[in-house]
């Protein structure tokens, strides 16, 4: 994945089952069967959700012997938050400055 796709990440996060998978794989690697069991999903459904998460860059996969192990990518989630946070943070600072200037101007 060459660039972070915030939209794909938001879409991936919109599904509570996928959020649950990320929670499970937040601190440690999980196998698909473990995720399927914890989320009460069939294996094909689990694979489908994992594919969406992987394509959105929110989960990484590692092959160990014959097993695939998944882990949430906390860095990507931090990127997503930063994307949402930065824009409004700086704009609201401008809003405050503008209002302050307006109030100054209104004073006799």
């Amino acid at each position, binding site marked *: 994945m060459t660039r972070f796709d915030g939209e794909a990440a938001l879409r991936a996060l919109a599904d509570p089952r996928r959020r649950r998978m990320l929670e499970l794989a937040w601190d440690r690697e999980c196998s698909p069967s473990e995720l399927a069991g914890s989320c009460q999903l069939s294996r094909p459904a689990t694979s489908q959700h994992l594919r969406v998460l992987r394509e959105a860059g929110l989960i990484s996969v590692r092959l160990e012997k014959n097993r695939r192990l998944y882990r949430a990518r906390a860095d990507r989630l931090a990127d997503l938050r930063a994307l*949402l946070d930065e824009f*409004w943070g700086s704009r609201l600072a401008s809003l405050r400055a503008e209002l*302050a200037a307006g109030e100054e101007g209104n004073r006799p």
Partner: protein
Amino acid sequence: VIDGDAVIHELVLPAPAGRVFDMFTDPRQLVRWIGISADLQPRPGGRFRFEVAPGQFCEGQYVIIDRPVRLVFTWGWTDPGFGLAPGTSRVEVTLAPAATMASRPGSGWSTPAWPGISDCCTTTAGPASWAGWPP
């Protein structure tokens, strides 16, 4: 503040709520702080589009317009390079007198930063569906 389900900005602004609200819905006011040109249809379901920087546009749709206390709109960038397309993010603006906010437990600050002036603006940006997350 980054809450479980959203990015939250809470600030005290030196103006009455109505004036703050109009900064979001009146194109002449909006361009003073967020863009260089704006085309707004401030009614529920109405669209807006503004130019943040030359050639960079933000677009969205108003969801709730309740002057002067609450404004909800969807939002995103038209340029796919930003990775956040219009409609993928939801912004909620809540305005309340600063005195009320300051007395609310856990609101994070105890005295208005702008003495004598009384409004507070909270914006929340994020998908509505992030609940208590990430862990």
